[in-house]
């Protein structure tokens, strides 16, 4: 990557005053946040507070109304999704957005088709075995179980060889054994220099994997800090846990 001395001092992701309204719905209403290099940041908040929308804005899937997004030192707000992806940002979708008619293996290969192609077959094989999907490698993606689809969604992001990965509730509905595999994969990727922003409702998972928690409510970031500090702050816990999840 373009790791100039100046860029490496900067966080991998920096968001300032990010707005996106859908008609009258203020999905994000002035989001400010940063994700450090090699950090695993957790993003929590009640349903509908704008977490997934933030992912879509950062990844270019949806264009923001206004605001600044810097990824790896570059301004990317409003850039097309494929260009942002090529800069080294990968994401998963909360509702699995798989290539339904393609096999599991082809889904992984397609994720590598633009970019890091050499060795893609080997990496796809490794990813299949990491995620325990070998036995369904030739199955159509839409024939997978819900949990397996989540795994494949995660596997595709891994195949991108990104520097920042945005994970949207990637372990929701996944068997605890497999969840452990994902958590281990996240930790080992971080060792290799990858940063993560992780949307998660499971507080146990947040506690075990995240370095820092960012709390959103009603389209804004309300606070961020270490898990223990956030938990101690009863007001935040009310925001987050006081509502039906």
């Amino acid at each position: 990557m373009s790791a100039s001395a100046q860029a490496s001092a900067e966080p991998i992701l920096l968001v300032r005053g990010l707005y996106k309204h859908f008609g009258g719905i203020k999905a994000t209403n002035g989001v400010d946040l940063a994700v450090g290099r090699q950090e695993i940041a957790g993003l929590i908040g009640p349903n509908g507070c704008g977490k997934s929308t933030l992912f879509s804005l950062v990844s270019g899937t949806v264009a923001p109304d206004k605001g600044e997004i810097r990824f790896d030192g570059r301004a990317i707000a409003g850039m097309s999704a494929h260009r942002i992806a090529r800069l080294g940002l990968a994401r998963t979708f909360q509702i699995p957005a798989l290539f339904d008619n393609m096999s599991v293996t082809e889904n992984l290969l397609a994720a590598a088709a633009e970019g890091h192609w050499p060795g893609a077959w080997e990496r796809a094989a490794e990813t299949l075995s990491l995620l325990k999907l070998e036995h369904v490698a030739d199955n159509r993606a839409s024939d997978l179980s819900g949990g397996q689809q989540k795994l494949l969604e995660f596997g595709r992001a891994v195949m991108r060889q990104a520097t920042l990965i945005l994970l949207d509730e990637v372990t929701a509905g996944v068997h605890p054994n497999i969840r452990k595999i994902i958590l281990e994969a996240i930790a080992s990727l971080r060792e290799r220099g990858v940063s993560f922003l992780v949307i998660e409702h499971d507080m146990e998972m947040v506690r075990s994997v995240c370095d820092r928690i960012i709390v959103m409510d009603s389209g804004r970031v309300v606070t961020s800090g270490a898990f223990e500090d956030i938990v101690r702050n009863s007001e935040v816990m009310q925001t987050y846990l006081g509502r039906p999840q």
Partner: protein
Amino acid sequence: MAAQPMKSRWPGLLLLAVIAVALVALPWTVNNYWLRVATGALMWAGLACSWNMLGGYAGYINFGHSAFFGLGAYVTAFLMNDPFGLPFLVTIPAGMVVTAVFAVVIGAPTLRLRGAYFAIATWAFAEVLIQFASAMDFTGGIGGIGLPPFLNERFFYFAMFGAAALTYLVAWALFEHSRFGLKVKALRDHEPAAEAMGINTALVKLQTFVLSAVTASVFGAIFAYWVTFINPKSVFGGDITDQMVVMVLLGGLGTLWGPAIGGVALFVVNRLIWMHWGDTAFYIAVLGAAIVLVVLFLPNGIAGLFVRRKANALEKAAGKLVGGGGER
């Protein structure tokens, strides 16, 4: 290159070899009538494959594909006549270039939109070309335009055979065994996800569309020289596109061999009906029945009966037509 894991592919290769040998030997084993039927069958198999490149692999329904068949035909007719008098083989690349330019002009703005807009734009383009070719002098107007006759049935049989073989080879290499094919199928199945994987979906769609159009123009060029006379309806007509669509749906949308199966089957039925009744009105009913058959019982076409892992490209293409598409 994406080398597939080696399964047992010998039976398939053997079948392909047998078919190839039979096709090469055909001109010495059948009479001229059936040789012409075989030439036509190869043309339709190739045209159906060209339509399937975009419709099946990318999920964008082209309702005006005859426009590109007709452009190839008219460019060849125009350039072979006075004052140019160019040799046939030179006119083919000329037609391909003209076709590519038109495909870019039509596709670049419309492929970004929902599939329905693209479908309407392509349909309208073919209609405009019919009107244009009917009104202009240099196209021979509504009466059409003749070409220097070359009455060698074997030449045209092998020309169509070569073009069809090349078309299927390109489709096999590009859509079934390359990174490009992965990108095309990915955007068919989920455009925002494909974009998130770094795929420039607008560009890949346009490349696929141009390839599909240019391929059709080659068959148009051979067709024009073969029949020695064309008019706007005979090469731009909507019924040409209709047949390609039904052939692909019947054979199997988004499959390699489906268009060949559907193309040959429907064209042979067409000729048999013509032989028995001397007209092809009943053929329209056959096309309608084929669509009903596919929609109700064979969503993956005839080819879908032979594969274990069922694809449903039909659903995706229908989805693009009414709902999702390039917008995000």
